[in-house]
């Protein structure tokens, strides 16, 4: 159903002629020799809109994951090296001990910060247990006498 203004309806009712009947044969006769024999599977994939969309989506996903891993949480930190609760407790204990030992507040805060950094990277820096046992990065242990 075509609706429109009176002038549009008037145009439609006047109509336009179509192509002459013999044009079909001429078109087919001219076009068939130009047909390509067929498409390879590689061409079908390369020229397929769906394949291109899928490739684009995959690329976007890879970049999105990569970018997610690099989002900073604060100065010099990322998802990968965010301190865990144990590291936080250790650092707070170190800061408290420094204050009780009579060190100035800013020095105690600096020590606390250093302790936090050290506790956040145990695999690279080794680990010190409460009873004084030191674990080296290669897995060996030292006794603190």
């Amino acid at each position: 159903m075509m609706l429109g203004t009176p002038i549009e309806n008037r145009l439609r009712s006047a109509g336009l002629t179509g192509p002459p009947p013999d044009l079909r044969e001429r078109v087919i006769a001219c076009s068939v020799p130009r047909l390509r024999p067929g498409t390879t599977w590689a061409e079908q994939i390369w020229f397929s809109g769906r394949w291109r969309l899928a490739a684009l989506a995959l690329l976007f996903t890879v970049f999105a994951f990569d970018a997610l891993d690099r989002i900073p949480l604060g100065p010099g930190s990322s998802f990968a090296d965010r301190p865990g609760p144990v590291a936080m407790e250790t650092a707070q204990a170190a800061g408290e001990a420094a204050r009780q030992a009579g060190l100035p507040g800013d020095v105690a805060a600096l020590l606390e910060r250093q302790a936090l950094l050290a506790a956040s990277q145990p695999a690279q820096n080794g680990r010190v247990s409460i009873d004084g046992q030191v674990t080296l990065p290669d897995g060996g242990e030292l006794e603190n006498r």
Partner: protein
Amino acid sequence: MDAQREDRRDRELLRQLAGGDAAAIGSLYDRHATALFRHGLALSGHASDAEDLVQATFVKLAARGPLLLGVRRPASYMHRMLHAEWIDLARHRAVAREESIEGELPGVQPGDAAEALDVRRALAALPERQREVVVLHVFNGLSFREIGRIAGVSTFTTASRYRLAIDRLRLLLGER
């Protein structure tokens, strides 16, 4: 919904054509030749030129091969090809586009009713670009957006051309 179904059917035919199926040309011709012929008539103003444009469009379509696999709107794609063919034809003949409409009335045949003759004369008096928009919109049912894509202009320009054309047709047909 119907338009989507038509597009899907056309894409399937283009896929067959890309695969070398000669029968697909006949099917595509049956579905689109009339609309393409009218478009050619609107651009050139001559039935013989319109026939040449339709023929050249199908010949190029057949030669496209795997490129046809990426076509999303086949009808629009074929109209764009015809439009490009017309630009080439006009350039080769060094015919000024606005002058080319004077020679022949579009689609007039002996025995046409007086009203139809009047309307076609009025159409023939329009500038080519305005006539193209009117024919594609009124006779072929394309939206201004689609016509803009075919002619390589914005939707706003297309709508503006259409409004000017309708105003002029009203004047020519004594509607005001």
